[in-house]
């Protein structure tokens, strides 16, 4: 490495005049709140951003569809169009052009069933001739509702329980922890089954069961974090100043717990979706005419050899949903807790 020759002149050693000196205290970048900071970091994570967009689109489509896909439409059957494969006008790819593989050869199922030329189903139909696209959108909505409502309960119960338990400490904490232990030592499925046996099968029971069984993890994490936050100086200060515990919880604890809450939520939603699908799959989930991704999957797998599309489409939607929530969850975790991101 060649040494560079430095040309130093005496002027270089002159002190900077007071006017020329910059403001040491000034921070060039704009001041950011914790959330803004997290958002900036999240934006850099392409996977998470794309996932966020997909989730938003799914939410909009699923809930926006409420105006178009009504109960009346769900019960309406058209047996003459039963079990048609997907047909998208203008696309001529086997599987998307109304053709179905039957006994090794592609057969035009639409022509075979004398379906009018202008009639087509983008994702095909089910055994009663109902549009699969419609049912998948509706099913996604139900799955999302189950997940979101269950998560809401999870939050409401888990967070408040965790804070109270951690804040009070001592005997109260001990009792509350034992209760958690009891609840979490009963497998989820058992709770759900018991709920479904007592109440009638359907969305309410599933949500209730999920709400009862799923909040314990959240409560445990919140408690642990509260325990450590409790000893922080600012909490001590607030306490000494005579702030009421509920106000401390709301103003100081919750904001500091927000990252845990958000991250945990992102993991609860997909597991709730998963669980609902699983229940519907074993036949104790959502009941007709309502449908969910799990119900569609269960119906679809029965015909997998003959009408593979009936399983593939709901499966793809479910997987995409799961992947997006998982990626977003990871992204948020990294954004809120930069230490883990490398």
């Amino acid at each position, binding site marked *: 490495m060649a040494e560079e020759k430095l040309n130093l002149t005496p002027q270089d050693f002159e002190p900077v005049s007071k006017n020329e000196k910059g403001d040491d205290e000034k921070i060039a970048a704009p001041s950011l709140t914790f959330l803004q900071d997290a958002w900036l970091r999240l934006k850099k994570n392409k996977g998470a951003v794309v996932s966020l967009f997909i989730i938003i689109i799914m939410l909009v489509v699923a809930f926006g569809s409420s105006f178009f896909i009504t109960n*009346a439409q769900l*019960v*309406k*059957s058209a*047996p003459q169009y*039963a*079990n048609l494969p997907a047909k998208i006008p203008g696309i001529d790819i086997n599987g998307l052009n109304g053709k179905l593989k*039957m006994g090794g050869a592609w057969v035009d199922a639409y022509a075979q069933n004398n379906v009018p030329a202008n009639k087509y189903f983008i994702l095909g139909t089910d*055994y*009663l*001739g109902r549009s699969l696209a419609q049912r998948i959108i509706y099913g996604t909505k139900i799955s999302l509702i189950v997940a979101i409502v269950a998560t809401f309960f999870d939050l409401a119960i888990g967070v408040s329980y965790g804070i109270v338990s951690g804040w009070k400490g001592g005997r109260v904490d001990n009792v509350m922890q034992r209760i958690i232990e009891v609840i979490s030592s009963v497998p989820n499925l058992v709770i759900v089954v018991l709920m479904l046996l007592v109440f*009638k*099968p359907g969305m309410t029971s599933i949500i209730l069961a999920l709400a009862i069984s799923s909040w314990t993890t959240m409560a445990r994490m919140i408690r642990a974090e509260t325990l450590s936050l409790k000893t922080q100086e600012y909490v001590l200060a607030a306490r000494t100043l005579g702030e009421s515990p509920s106000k401390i919880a709301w103003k100081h604890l919750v904001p500091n717990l927000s990252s845990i809450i958000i991250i945990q939520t992102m993991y609860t939603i997909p597991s709730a979706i998963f669980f609902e699908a699983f229940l519907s799959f074993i*036949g*104790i989930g959502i*009941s*007709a*005419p309502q449908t969910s991704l799990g119900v569609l999957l269960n119906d679809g*797998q*029965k*015909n*997998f*050899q*003959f*009408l593979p599309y009936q399983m593939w489409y709901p499966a793809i939607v479910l997987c995409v949903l799961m992947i997006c929530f998982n990626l977003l969850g990871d992204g948020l975790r990294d954004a809120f807790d930069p230490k883990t991101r490398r």
Partner: protein
Amino acid sequence: MKLKKVAAAGSVVFLSALALAACGNKSADSSKQVFNFSETGELPGMDLSKATDTISFTNLANTMEGLYRIGKDSKIEPGVAKKTEVSNGGKTYTFYLRKSKWSNGDPVTAKDFVYSWRRTLDPKTASQYSYLFDGVQNANDIIEGKKAPDTLGIKAEGDYKLVVNLEKPIPYFKLLMGFPVFFPQNQKAVDKFGSKYATASDKLYYNGPFKMTGWTGSNLSWKLQKNNSYWDKKNVHLDSVNYQVNKSGNTRYNKYKQGSVDYITLETDQAKNLKNNADYHLMKESTLAYLEFNEQASNPTVKKALSNKKIRQALSMAINRDQYVKTSAFGSQAAPGIVPDGLAVRNGKDFNSNIKGTGVTSDAKEAKKLWKEGLAEIGEKKLTLNLLGDDNDAAKKSGDFMQSNWETTLPGLKVNVQNVPFKTRLARSSSGDFDVVLTLWGDDFADPISTLDLFTSDNSQNDGKWKNSEYDSLIKASKTTDANDPAKRWDDLQKAQKILLEDQAVAPIYQRRTPYLVKSKVKGLIINSVGVTYNFKNVQIK
């Protein structure tokens, strides 16, 4: 980078395990007389006094032998009885038994029948099928605990002569003898195994064409092996029937295609796609699905509505039965009446020949009209009904379909489908906790009375509480005054069915025909529509 190697080595090991496994996976030698049979559920028990389901009955009928055996088309074939005399106006049956053996070497004697029947009827046994003995002397009193089991009208005169006394002639008595509840039991086995009797394949003795092995009480595979002490063993060709329980329809079909099973039943959508397959067949069944309307429903509006004939008719007509059997119960046929087609034939005419579609027609227009009139009669504009059904796949599809038909055809009707487990459905039906219930009834023996008896006003299975005195008296006449006059009895029963359907007491929907696949090499499999479904005795693999 050693870890990479470890990972690579790991995957190599894993893949070679796969490959090795693949090599070991060869199908069994096809020249053997082995029938691989796929069943849909576990075998709940082999105690013939306590059995309640078709899987138990099928296994019992193939490992045990009664006085008769039910052969092709529900015809009786010789069993333990080699000769039968009927006397006393059809009220006394004398059976002469052939010499045959239990699998432990004991002879099968008349005493085994006496013991078995008494055991079944003893209230302590709590048999759920003891009602079939109705008509045998003192049977009902014994079941109710009023008389001792040894007062039953069955007697062993020596080891090989059995005399049965009836209270009234039972025209189908010989057919009943082919049903496992009437088979003999070895008292030694019952005493020896005590509370474990018939809970595993080695906890009972067999006298039928096959012996069971490998059944532990709740496992998913067992074998029926040829019984070499069976009296007619020269006509048993199979070495064994290998039972495999596969609960998923998808799995069953995959196994059939892979060749590890020779027989499977199909689900609706599979059947739709396989209807042109050479192995595809339809099982004739005497199982009918019908709707019962609760005329004593707790909700006063529902009670009023369902007691109205026009509303019942509208509900029945609104269901498009032809479409129904195409979409939701493929292979089945639209209900011919409340009595299954082909169950009873007289002088070349089917039992259902006189009804000509009464009560089983589907007509959306007429349904709408009747619906409006009916609603006007009861002074209502809207109606909400709960439709109760089983929670299996077929029943869920039925609920789906009927809800769809009703809500789109009949304005102002809202239907809630309730799918519950089988036993819950039964409990709710009998306690009247339903509005409309989809019931499946399979006849126990090939006589219309097996179905028609259900709807007399005092029958405990008349869940809808429909009442009609003319119907009651016709059924009574068929059992009493006309019992020994086949023509008159036939006439009574035909009339009764017509009354039932004209009043739309129930709405018959479809007669089930289960689609199945069987390999063409399997010859001689007998599948019956009543009582015991499969008879493997004469099966041969060619």
